[in-house]
């Protein structure tokens, strides 16, 4: 399990290569990359500032990954989340999950993203033509996280 919060950008190939190095039992890697869009809720966005609660962030992300690891047969999971100033098209987050078969990797990857969106202490402030504004949490994110509570 590896969780990193950093200002620096990350390289997808480098991260995934390191993640699966020397592990020929891995048959599937599902990955998600979140990116800064140039428009949100009807406004142009020229930049983004990501604030977080450092003492809690690492602990929250490790807790989410631990839940995924208990719930699905996966070999490993990786989360990298950036903080600080970002521009449109910049990478914000990477979640990658390795497993023997694809279904577990897809599910655990989406689970981690859904929980990260509602449980990890990050906040976005967007720069728009009307000034800086804090991004509101989306009800759809709460719904997305809730569906994992169903028994299956």
């Amino acid at each position, binding site marked *: 399990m590896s969780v990193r919060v950093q200002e620096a950008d990350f390289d997808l190939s480098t991260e995934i290569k390191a993640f699966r190095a020397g592990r020929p039992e891995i048959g599937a890697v599902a990955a998600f990359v979140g990116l800064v869009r140039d428009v949100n809720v009807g406004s142009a966005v020229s930049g983004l500032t990501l604030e977080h*609660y450092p003492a809690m962030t690492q602990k929250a992300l490790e807790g989410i990954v631990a839940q995924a690891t208990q719930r699905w047969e996966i070999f490993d999971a990786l989360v990298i989340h950036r903080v600080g100033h970002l521009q449109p098209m910049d990478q914000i*987050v990477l979640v990658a999950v390795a497993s023997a078969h694809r279904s577990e990797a897809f599910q655990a990857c989406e689970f981690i*993203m859904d929980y990260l*969106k509602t449980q990890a202490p*990050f*906040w976005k402030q967007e720069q728009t033509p009307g000034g800086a504004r804090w991004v509101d*949490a989306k009800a759809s994110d709460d719904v997305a996280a809730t569906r994992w509570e169903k028994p299956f």
Partner: protein
Amino acid sequence: MSVTILYFARLRETLGLAQEKIELPAHAASVAGLLDHLRARGEEWHTALAPTQSYRVAVNQDMADITTPVQDGDEVAIFPPVTGG
């Protein structure tokens, strides 16, 4: 008892405060009690921390609810719903 409180994002800006250390009376030793204590500071606090507002509380870096106990030396964080990812 002594409690550290952290405020983040929009709530930090609304309240004009990022961090403080307060003395909390023993009868207020829960998240609910702490919030009541803060709301009593005046209109601005009463409004920002009204139960109808959307905000979250963490105690010692774990998500909490109003029944969560607060003890001497705890770090309590109050913040808007998170928007990372």
